[in-house]
């Protein structure tokens, strides 16, 4: 089973040289720490920055420099700053190569729900709907099941939808899966110590298992 850092590390393996990447809040933010230094990638912050750098050291905090999670950040050399309209133009126009975000549910069609739980306080969708509607490639970082053991990889989402047919790949604490349109969740890799049967049990949506399923390698 993977912890949050494990999920982040495994997603970091998907990153390719030359990519522009938008990282969501939570586990996706951690991915930045595990991207090999040999790769040249640029991280986008949808509030108006290309080139997110590490968090600042204590003396270098700048209130005018935050990420989409409102955390203080720094800029890499070669960064650019722009308005929210330009930023979402970039996202909507398909210029961002990879979007990594969290989810509460994903359906076997690739629908995602991650913005609202009925009955709970609604905080808003922020940029999530724009991101999922336009991203060329979306990887979801999530727990395979809820705390009470219910699967979050479903036939159909039960929570309000953020976007339809958009998720391409999922990395959970149990497995790595592709969403194959019209087919279902295709199991690619097992988390260390997790059996195919355990993943089957934890997946409500249609799970495709073909041949030997290897364990995730780091």
């Amino acid at each position, binding site marked *: 089973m993977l912890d949050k850092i494990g999920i982040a590390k495994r997603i970091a393996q998907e990153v390719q040289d030359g990519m522009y990447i938008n990282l969501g809040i939570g586990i996706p933010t951690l991915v930045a720490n595990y991207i090999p230094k040999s790769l040249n990638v640029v991280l986008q912050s949808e509030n108006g920055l290309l080139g997110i750098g590490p968090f600042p050291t204590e003396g270098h905090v700048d209130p005018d420099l935050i990420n989409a999670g409102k955390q*203080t950040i720094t800029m890499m050399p070669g960064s650019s700053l722009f308005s929210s309209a330009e930023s*979402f133009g970039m996202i909507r126009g398909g210029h961002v190569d990879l979007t990594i975000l969290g989810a509460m549910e994903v359906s076997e069609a690739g629908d995602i729900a991650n913005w609202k739980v009925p009955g709970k306080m609604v905080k808003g969708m922020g940029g999530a709907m724009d991101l999922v509607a336009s991203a060329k490639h979306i990887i979801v970082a999530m727990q395979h099941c809820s705390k009470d053991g219910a699967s979050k990889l479903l036939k159909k989402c039960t929570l309000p939808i953020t976007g339809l047919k958009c998720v391409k790949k999922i990395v959970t604490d149990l497995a790595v899966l592709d969403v194959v349109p019209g087919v279902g969740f295709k199991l690619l890799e097992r988390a260390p110590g997790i059996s195919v049967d355990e993943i089957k049990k934890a997946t409500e949506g249609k799970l495709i298992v073909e041949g030997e399923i290897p364990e995730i390698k780091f």
Partner: protein
Amino acid sequence: MINKVVANAEGAVKDIPDNAVLMLGGFGLCGIPENCINALLKKGVKGLTCISNNAGVDDFGIGLLLKSRQVKKMISSYVGENAEFERQLLSGELEVELIPQGTLAERCRAGGAGIPAFFTPAGYGTEVAEGKEVREFDGKKYLMEHWLRADFSIVKAWKGDTSGNLVYRGTARNFNPMMAAAGKITIAEVEELVPVGALDPNNIHTPGIYIQRIFQGKNYEKRIEQKTVSKSA
């Protein structure tokens, strides 16, 4: 050049009436018009509709106007981190319209640029799409969204000249440029007011044509919402 300077925040907001539709720049607490928010608080204007990506926190930013019950409606993309907000929302005192962040940015941009409607894929298939026209282009579904305009837009810039040309700093730019263009009257508060000619024409973020009033703000707190530091240098 045309001189747009007013003395201070109180002068800049003095004719904003009850029930006005306002746009307020900023993302989180970054790039928000602190001086004008305080002047609105002091003035006590009521029934405001505030278009702003966020709603501040309990004791800072638009949160202050919520606490004093001056806001009737928020049009935002993300409004967490605010207990008083939640109380008013659940009790029905406050209306909230939630809009995807990119759609909000583009609707403001459309308002300033004279484009009454446009198509975006954000929100298709979700409850955001309810009641909206759906159209397919090149095999993909889009929603028709309308422009947003305001009676008064209130923006915050780093530097500005007396004719209203503005330069923002860092990620404090965010919604400010689009909102500056989408207000019938736009008020800019700046950290540093400079004479005409002091800013490089090639590096103006908001041309002065969009600005009707400008003043140099004071006592900027520039509060940080999530101070996050790394240990290594």
